[in-house]
């Protein structure tokens, strides 16, 4: 029981002991994991790959119109946690998720819920740009087509243009929409993937190290874009760059070996970390 008490104490408030009952060896999270106006709420999330536990009792809210960044050393489980939020882990053999993850108060792991429409609500941008080997236009039109979002060609054209404009790519590609998306530069490809995600009007966008394969200029453009997107979407971003976390996010969560160690306002985390592990990581003593 001592471990349970240790878990509950610092994150008291909205979390009940029952939420955490399944989690055995988790460490306490420092800071307030909740927000006033949450889009997604995660409580006591455990993830196993076969017999190995990758995430241990993580609770975290993602608020509306905010960017939450997740940082931590490699293998700390931040990407795994991110992939739970739109059930992308379902495609991995032997992956098991317990605990509760809610999107607008609907449990996304509910047995009756179809993960397919969920992924339209919670979009994802990957580490390596992965445009389909189709034209730029078809890359954007793919999502709206499979979800039947538009009624005719003109509406689809409009949607493609708005999506590309929101991703800041329209001016660069408007004259070559029929050319393959794989022919763009790395940064353009990543913005194409963001535009593709925006086109199905998600509520949340998950980004898994979206800039790690890009040069500094392309990175700066994407970071600016993330800041603009915050107006319409909730964004969770995994990053290895602490500067990036500091630049784009309002709140930061620090993961360590499957535990969520500390959550807080980004400024606080970087200027005044409360947990020893967070401080060590931020000051570059390890990781």
């Amino acid at each position, binding site marked *: 029981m001592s471990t349970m008490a240790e878990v509950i104490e610092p994150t008291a408030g909205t979390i009940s002991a029952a939420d955490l009952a399944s989690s055995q060896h988790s460490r306490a999270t420092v800071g307030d994991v909740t927000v006033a106006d949450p889009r997604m709420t995660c409580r006591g999330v455990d993830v196993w790959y076969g017999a190995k536990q990758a995430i241990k009792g993580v609770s975290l809210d993602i608020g509306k119109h905010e960017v939450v960044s997740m940082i931590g050393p490699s293998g700390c489980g931040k990407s795994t946690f991110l992939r739970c939020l739109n059930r992308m882990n379902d495609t991995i053999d032997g992956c098991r998720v317990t605990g509760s993850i809610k999107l607008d108060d609907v449990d996304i792991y509910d047995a009756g819920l179809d993960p*397919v429409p969920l992924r*339209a609500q919670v979009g994802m941008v990957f580490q390596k740009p*992965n445009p*389909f080997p189709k034209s730029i236009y078809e890359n954007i039109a*793919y*999502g709206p087509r*499979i*979800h039947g979002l538009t009624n005719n060609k003109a509406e689809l054209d409009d949607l493609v243009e708005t999506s590309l404009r929101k991703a800041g790519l329209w001016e660069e590609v408007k004259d070559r929409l029929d050319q393959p998306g794989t022919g763009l530069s790395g940064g353009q490809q990543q913005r194409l993937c963001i535009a593709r*995600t925006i086109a*199905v009007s998600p509520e949340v966008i998950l980004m898994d190290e979206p800039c790690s394969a890009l040069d500094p200029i392309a990175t700066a453009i994407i970071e600016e874009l993330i800041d603009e997107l915050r107006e319409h979407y909730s964004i969770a971003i995994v990053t290895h760059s602490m500067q990036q976390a500091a630049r784009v996010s309002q709140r930061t969560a620090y993961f360590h070996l499957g535990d969520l160690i500390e959550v807080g306002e980004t400024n606080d985390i970087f200027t005044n970390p409360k947990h020893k592990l967070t401080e060590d990581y931020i000051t570059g003593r390890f990781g």
Partner: protein
Amino acid sequence: MQAWTLVVFLLATMAVAYHLGRKRAIVRAGGASRIKDLHSLPAYYGLYAALWAGLPALLLMGLWVGLQDQILITLVTASLPPEMLEGLSDGRVGLLINDIKNLATGNIVSMDVTPAIQVAAEQYTRLRGIFQWAMWLAVAAVAIGGLSFAWASTEPRMRARNRVEGAVKVMMIVFSSIAILTTLGIVLSVVFESLRFFDQVSPLEFFFGTRWSPQIALRADQVGASGAFGAIPLFTGTLMVSVIAMLVAVPIGLLSAIYLSEYAARRVRALAKPVIEVLAGIPTVVYGFFAALTVAPFIRSLGASLGLDVASESALAAGLVMGIMIIPFVSSLSDDVINAVPQSLRDGSYALGATQSETIRRVILPAALPGIVGGVLLAVSRAIGETMIVVMAAGLAANLTANPLDSVTTVTVQIVTLLTGDQEFDSAKTLAAFALGLTLFLVTLSLNVIALTVVRKYREQYE
């Protein structure tokens, strides 16, 4: 002295040379402790000596064996009394020489043995004995000479490794040119024989004629042997059987590939994939009698019960069985290209809320399509060149028909029939096989080239 004893001797010399060369290098370096003064490792000096001992001697031996008979014949012919050769054609002289050789080796002789021939045969035997001894001595001398040269030139600064590697490289070039030259030789021989055929039958008749009846009259009054060489019925027959085969193989192969690579659990896949590939391991002759003895009668009785007239050897039966044979080609190649589509594309599609079937239809199959097309083309060229099944199940009658229930014949079947049994090798009938072979070769070659280009283009897309 047999030639093989000489080969054994050479191999032994090479082994000795290796050890001598190795030792010599170490000695010249100043003992085992000074090996680092050598340019190359001692083993390279050994190989260097072995190559010098073996290669020139082997080359000489090859040349000698190749030329010996020619020189012997020239010498023996020159010693024959001139009046014996007078007025004889080249062919008759050849026969005479053959008889002399046969007499010398104790085989059956075709003509009366005259004293002159007896003498010539004895001379032939004697000369051959001398030549073999001479070869032994010359080759052994060259081997020893090579070894001594390597021995003398071994010194620490000699770049043995570079020289050995150079020699090995030359050997590899020689061997790979053997493969290329053989292919070239086969193609050229087919081309030349085809040209001889086209001297007798015009290409126009061959490629556009609609009557195939390759029996040629040996006597003027022979009935039913007109010799018509219109290959169109063969081409259409081949086409029909191949199309039926592809209609069976492509859907089954492709769908099973999609199931195995995208839907099947790992254990199902581990079991099903090898089982499907067993189909590729069944000898075609087994497929052949399966088609002729099981499928064809089944189709015939099925057709009879529906009131259809089915030939006992139908294109349908041959095509169906050939299709089954080709399934593993299509499924295994498609499986590979579908698996080669990066997981990131699947993730990207799922992350947009696409279902698995939408992802397969709209992302994976379009991305894999060039590779699948390449695989199918390879399967087509396999179907066109397939012989055994059609020989047994499709029939020999060159019908120009579009009815798959009829008996048809294919290019490969006709090549087999034209060349089976005793044939004269300069009649249009036999030469027709070469023209058919050339056509077949050109078609499958271009299909393979197209297929490989398509597959290669596809590979570049993701690498």
